[in-house]
């Protein structure tokens, strides 16, 4: 690879062929991610993409970056540990709505609160794809499935507001089919200091074929991104769930990682035990 030539999106793609269903929104996300990384002028080895378990969570292996396909729901702690220990790496955590909002919900809350400089991408298809179609926390109340015959009857919850209430510093919604928009949002998110969260609506054509209609429902947010979390929260709670773009861009204090300098030796530390 010629060091001087700028990398193209395709330079970020691995040779592994995705197992995703053709038509799946996650292919778009993969594409946008590679484009964003090229735009960001990162080198593949400087980027780590960390995920949990689910169709969407298969994404790291399809990239030429460092990757970690962890266990279900624990991608954010993996990413947090990596980023704090290795602040020189660009860390992107990615996964699904089940992985991130159901089993991984607690880490989502606390990763937002910690506000460490990483980017979290949730490919939200409002379903557990990998396990054959069970409702997730963002699923509509009347969506029928084997595990919840006739629908759960539960209102989907608001991950973007939860991110705001927990302390995330950059909150955006994207639609996978909007590749240019998503690419831009990802690179903005990576560039923004602190914890950035992007909910990407990414259709599951197999279990939620009706989501192909999302394409026509999507629109840009009616107003500009705000830096007032309370205002942003209110707006998101009342919007229709289909406006894409940056919804909040804050300047909350990011997590303080140690300076990496050896101020003391281990021998210094031992002093306190000496009699």
């Amino acid at each position, binding site marked *: 690879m010629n060091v001087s030539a700028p990398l193209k999106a395709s330079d970020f793609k691995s040779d592994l062929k995705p197992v995703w269903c053709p038509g799946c929104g996650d292919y778009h996300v993969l594409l946008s991610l590679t484009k964003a990384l090229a735009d960001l002028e990162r080198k593949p080895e400087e980027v780590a993409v960390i995920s949990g378990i689910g169709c969407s969570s298969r994404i790291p292996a399809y990239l030429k970056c460092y990757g970690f396909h962890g266990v279900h729901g624990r991608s954010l702690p993996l990413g947090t540990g990596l980023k704090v220990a290795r602040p020189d790496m660009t860390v992107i955590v990615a996964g699904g709505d089940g992985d991130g909002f159901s089993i991984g919900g607690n880490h989502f809350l606390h990763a937002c609160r910690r506000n460490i400089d990483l980017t979290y991408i949730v490919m939200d298809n409002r379903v557990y794809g990998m396990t054959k179609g069970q409702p997730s926390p963002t699923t509509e109340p009347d969506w029928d499935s084997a595990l919840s015959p006739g629908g759960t009857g539960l209102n989907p919850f608001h991950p973007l507001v939860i991110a705001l209430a927990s302390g995330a510093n950059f909150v955006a919604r994207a639609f996978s089919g909007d590749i240019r928009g998503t690419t*831009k949002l990802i690179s903005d998110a990576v560039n923004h200091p602190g914890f950035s969260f992007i909910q990407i609506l990414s259709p599951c054509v197999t279990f939620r074929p009706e989501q192909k209609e999302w394409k026509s429902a999507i629109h840009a947010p009616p107003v500009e991104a705000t830096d007032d979390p309370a205002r942003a929260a209110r707006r998101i709670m009342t919007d229709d769930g289909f406006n894409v773009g940056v919804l909040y861009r804050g300047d909350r204090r990011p997590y303080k990682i140690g300076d990496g300098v050896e101020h003391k030796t281990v021998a210094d530390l031992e002093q306190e035990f000496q009699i």
Partner: protein
Amino acid sequence: MSANPDNEISSLSELLTHAYAIEEDAIDRYHMLGDQMEVHNNHELAKLFRDLAGHEEKHAAEIKARAETIGLMNLKSSEYKWPDTEGPELAALDEAHYRMTPWHALQMALKAETRAFEFFDHIVNTVTDPEIKKWAEEFREEEAEHVTLVERLLEKNPEPPAGWADDDDPPNLQE
């Protein structure tokens, strides 16, 4: 969506860069679709997409040769002046299906070529620089040829009857 049709192509190099990117992206896209079909054992379609990619490769090489003296720009994805959310000559990924037939693939290609035609057509109609206009006209004609080519192929590959996507077997549980 984040369409940005008002931006005008302002130099020959920029035009060539776009023309080249159109082909390169299309190559990637067709290979991506070819990969999908391979993984999903739709070998007929895998071959078709590889063939389409082959076509685009030839065009890309031609453009590159033509750009030799003028030079190509290094643009970020956001700096391209596409009329839509991505490059015009791109088969829509969301229209893929593991049981799709050549007709579907050719429909995808047709739309992509048509969009490419419209892209250059728009430049031809809006750009003031005569040099850029001349080159854009050439690209437009090429795309027009592609459109006819795909249309001809479509005649040999009729639309499949309803139910082409039916799969008797349920999806598989994985992880």
